[in-house]
Every structure is written in structure tokens, then in C-alpha cells.
């Protein structure tokens, strides 16, 4: 069975008035397969700062730090709350357009041979190559967070993955 893979890249700009280099945070991946019903799997994979060892590039604004800690969860909620007649990835940029923003949306056809997790790992590794994107176990409808060392540093960034699935009647999806 063929499917369509779409993914959105998520970035951070710590200062919207005097911009610095943006920080890549992660991706939102969505695979949609049609077989009578439409089955959509979504996965958010990205990095969150470690509160114990805050990366200097995220700045020191406490509200922004709070947003950074929970961006994968907040985006997952936004995906789940998207009305069934709308594509979540098209809706996300309408609200995620400030310090944390959806930068690009890309898509390509895929087969069902690989899991959504494998596809997401491949994409996020390509997007943020300096992180060690190795997950310790398969996940399903759960949140996993692990911290990954970068070089010899104490882990400054953790990575988080959240997978959700929803199955919709074919006619409700446009």
C-alpha cells in the first residue's frame, strides 16, 4: 500500500527584534495511508533543552524556556485537535509563527515498509545531524524523552518523540 509522507520543520528564534542564527528544534511527521479508511500516523521528534544544563543558544527568557520545554507536547495537542476536514500540517503554521515556528513543509510518497518512527528518525537526523538520534525502544501512543550528550558535554539537549495515530472515515478527509 502506498502512502504520503509530509513533514514540517520546527525552528527557534530567540529574539524576534534582533535575530540571531535560528536553532533547529525538530520535525512533525505525518504519514497518511488510504485503504477504505484513511489512517494517519503523526509523530513529533525533536529536541528540548535540559533544565539542568541549559544550552546557551536558547537564551534566558523564562517564558520562552517554558515553551521550549513543552513544544513537542503542545504541537502534538494541536495536531490532535485539528478538525478532521483539515490537514494538521497546514494548520500548524497559523499559530506556530513566533519564536517557535514552522519553517517548511515537505512531502514525498512512501511505502508502508518502514515504521513511522524509522521514517521520522531518518528525517530528523538529516535536519539536525549533530544530535544522536537513537531511540532505546519502540513506542506506540506514548511520550518518550531521553537526554543525549553532544560531544563531551553534559547533555544540554534531550530528545523527545511523541507518536499518535488516528483513523478517520475516508469521506471526512479532504
Amino acid at each position, binding site marked *: 500500500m502506498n502512502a504520503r509522507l509530509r513533514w514540517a520543520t520546527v525552528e527557534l528564534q530567540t529574539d524576534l*527584534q*534582533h535575530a540571531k542564527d535560528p536553532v533547529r528544534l525538530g520535525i512533525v511527521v505525518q504519514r497518511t495511508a488510504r485503504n477504505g479508511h484513511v489512517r494517519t500516523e503523526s509523530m513529533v521528534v525533536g529536541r528540548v533543552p535540559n533544565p539542568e544544563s541549559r544550552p546557551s543558544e536558547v537564551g534566558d527568557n*523564562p517564558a520562552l524556556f517554558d515553551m521550549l520545554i513543552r513544544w513537542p507536547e503542545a504541537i502534538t495537542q494541536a495536531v490532535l485537535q485539528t478538525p478532521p476536514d483539515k490537514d494538521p500540517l497546514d494548520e500548524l503554521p497559523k499559530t506556530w*509563527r513566533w*519564536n517557535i515556528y*514552522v519553517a517548511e513543509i515537505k512531502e514525498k510518497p512512501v511505502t508502508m515498509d518502514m515504521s513511522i518512527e524509522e521514517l521520522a528518525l531518518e528525517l530528523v537526523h538529516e535536519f539536525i545531524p549533530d544530535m544522536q538520534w537513537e531511540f532505546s525502544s519502540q513506542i506506540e501512543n506514548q511520550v518518550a524523552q531521553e537526554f543525549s550528550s553532544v560531544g563531551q558535554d553534559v547533555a544540554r539537549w534531550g530528545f523527545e518523540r511523541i507518536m499518535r495515530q488516528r483513523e478517520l472515515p475516508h469521506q471526512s478527509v479532504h
Partner: protein
Amino acid sequence: MEQVDPSSATSGQPQQQQQVQQPPPIQVQPAATIEDWKKTTKWKPRLTGTASGGSPVEDVATGDSVGLAKPRDVWQERIAYLLAQLAGVNVAEVRLGRVEGSQQIHAVSIALGPVSMDVASLQSQLGPSYNQQQVEAALRAASGLLAFHAWLGTGDLKDEHVVADLRGDGTVVVAAIDFASCCGWQPTDPVSAPGGPGALISQVDKAAVQAAVNRIEATTDEAIGEAVDSLPDAVMPKADKDRVKKGLCARRALVKNCMKNQGWTP
């Protein structure tokens, strides 16, 4: 919606002018200093499908400032920012600029603060650290914007057009953005109370609204003329300048009753 007809108001000098401290002269960006901007890779939110047709840009001179350049409704965006200084209300800064060497002048919207977002997105993105009391206090302090919206006849009023500056010290300041639809009236049109944004209407501080009313009434013909005439003719045709100057002068005395009829002033 309550409306106040121009024929029912006194013209000439506003009634409370003696009680109000004259606002300081506004800082008008001279036409000769229209800045050069270019597309930026530092901040690149995907904005396709937005009504403004804006694109993220950075200033050529320093590469330090970023903004959102809009090719449409340029004078409306800029005049609202200038008039907000006269009315003593917060509107995020709008500069005039050229993008990538184009001769077309754009309105370049500058973020309200380093960390800012629209109030409609605040709760979902901040999560447990969303401080409702603090945000509501900031909205009340900004509720003079309702009088300002009445004066300018702003349309498309929604919470996405109210932004919060989340400052490093934990304080929150609120301002308005997106005045693309303002000043579309004829000078003799009645003044209507704004139907939004809901976030401001639900947090009216009567003293803040009254203060804005007073500042609007105290604004002189000369100050209005200076703000309008600061816009290049290429951006705001002379016919629009004449209409808007006349309308702003006529409407400033009507805002008071409009706010009173809504119960938004003491």
C-alpha cells in the same frame, strides 16, 4: 453596535483638552530614511495563505533587525503606528522599507519584543506556566486600544491581532497589530464601537479607556496632519491623505460617546 453620528457631536476643540497633558511630539521617520531590507534566513515562519502577504526580512544595514514586510495596505499600517503614539496606546512598530532593492515601499512590522506572540496562542504554547492573572492585567492596561480602534475604524478585530511581549523579568505588555483595514470610512461616517478583539473587550479597564479617549480628543489638527503628511505620496495618495486627515479630526470628538454608550468609560 452603538454608533455616534458626527452631527450629534461638538466640533472644534475637544471638551476636556485643558485636563489632559499634551502628548509629546511623535517620532516621524522621514521619507528620506526609508530603510533597505532583504529576505532573511534568521526567522522564516511559513506564512503562506495569510491575508497580509507578508514575508520575513532583515535590515540590510546591520542584518540585526528582523521584521515582516507587507506590500499591501502600507499606509494603513504605518499611520496606525504613528497615531497610536498620539493616543498613548501600544501598537507594535511599523517602519517603511524597500525589500531587495524593489522600488515598492513596504510596511515592515517589527515584533513587540524579543519574545512575543498573539494572545490567542499564549495559553496553548505556554502551558502550565501561562499566568492568566498577569495576562489579564496586561490586557486591562491595554484596553485603551478599544477607543483607538473606534477612532481609526479598524476592522478584522480578533485575538490573533493582539500581541503579548513576554519580558525577561516576567512582566507582560500587550499591543495591537494589523491595521490593514483601518481608515476605510468617509469623514462624515458615524463612529462605531469595535466588535473585538474579544480578549480586550472581556478585560475593559474604564480608566484606561478614558485615558485613551482623553488623549485622542487632545490630539490637534496639526499633529494629525504631521503624521499623515509624513507618509510619501507613493504610499498614500493625496486624496486619501485629505480624506483621512478630515475624518480623523471629525471622529476624535465622537469616540467619547461611543465608549460611554458601551459602558467602557467611568
